[in-house]
């Protein structure tokens, strides 16, 4: 008998896909469909107001395409976000699986779909209160309720329990893939979120200048 062949094992991947693999394309498309509907409703509302003022009809086909472009941009954003965290952890000698993590970001974004839908519904009914502000952020109260500059509202107006839940969920997924405790991914996620929101707020203020309305 000759020497037994060496057993080559693939490195164990701790993180599963967000769904069973065969379902994943349908799941990603389904979440994209929800985002597309949300974006389309917003575009239609803006276009309807504009059309009423200038007496022109809104082009529904162009709006549908614009909403689709919004979904594509959002999904590219998920990939960039996943790539950023993979890069971050690679610099610490750990591997995060980009595509698997991105699949989770798509799922986690359903929280944002839900939050945004409720926000728009509350705005339409002028029904936001302190309770909703706690859940969805002070921006829910609108510019009059926020008592802060446009930059601050743009930056931190969505900070509520839903945002905290989103960060916790994303950090938990990272922790599973990295095989670490929760606190390090949570700190990375929270710092990244705060830094990007700070940058967004500064840009919003710079874009507005001294103009009194956002």
């Amino acid at each position: 008998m000759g020497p037994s062949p060496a057993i080559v094992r693939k490195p164990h991947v701790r993180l599963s896909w967000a769904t069973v693999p065969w379902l994943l394309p349908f799941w990603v498309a389904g979440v994209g469909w929800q985002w597309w509907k949300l974006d389309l409703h917003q575009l239609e509302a803006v276009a309807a107001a504009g059309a009423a003022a200038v007496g022109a009809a809104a082009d529904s086909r162009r709006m549908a395409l614009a909403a689709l472009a919004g979904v594509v941009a959002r999904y590219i954003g998920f990939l960039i976000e996943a790539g950023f965290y993979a890069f971050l952890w690679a610099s610490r000698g750990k591997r995060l699986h980009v595509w698997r993590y991105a699949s989770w970001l798509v799922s986690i974004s359903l929280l944002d779909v839900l939050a945004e839908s409720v926000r728009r519904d509350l705005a339409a009914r002028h029904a936001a209160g302190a309770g909703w502000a706690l859940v969805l952020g002070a921006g829910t109260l609108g510019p009059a309720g926020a008592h802060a500059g446009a930059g601050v509202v743009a930056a931190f107006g969505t900070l509520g329990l839903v945002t905290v839940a989103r960060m916790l969920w994303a950090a938990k997924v990272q922790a599973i893939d990295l095989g670490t405790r929760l606190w390090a991914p949570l700190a990375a996620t929270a710092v990244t979120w705060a830094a990007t929101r700070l940058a967004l707020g500064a840009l919003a203020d710079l874009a507005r200048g001294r103009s009194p309305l956002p």
Partner: protein
Amino acid sequence: VTRAAVLARVAGWAGWLIGGASIVALVWLWNADRHRHWEEPRWERASFVVLRDRLRAPGDSADTWMVAYNQQCAHCRHNLARAARLRPTIRPAPHLAVLLIDTEAPLARHAAGALAADQVFWDSLAVWRRRWGHRVYGEVLRFDATGRYRGAVRLENAEAAP
């Protein structure tokens, strides 16, 4: 430790450095912009090129609503139309003015003929942007009869009022 791992760590730290420096630079820029001295807006003929003007009758104390207008901006057309629609519902009805911003001279003169407003001024010296520090196209500002700034007009609120 492999060469690739070392490179990944170096690239990681470089990424952090660049990201951190970008945020610091942005916050510095934001702070400098906020603390720069800006002039209080003032609606006066001397600051702009007058393309159209309807002189006020003696004793006319109505405000002026000024729309910051750029031809390429749909929001500007939208807000000008809303302001024109709202104007008759307010007593005394404000004068409607257009300030053509970020516009070249030939375009400004061409645009002035088509705009339904009492006054059309062209901001040839970029007063709106460089001296007032305003940057949002389509904003509607309110001035009293002497040209003194009285704040912004919230068209949504005015439309919602009974």
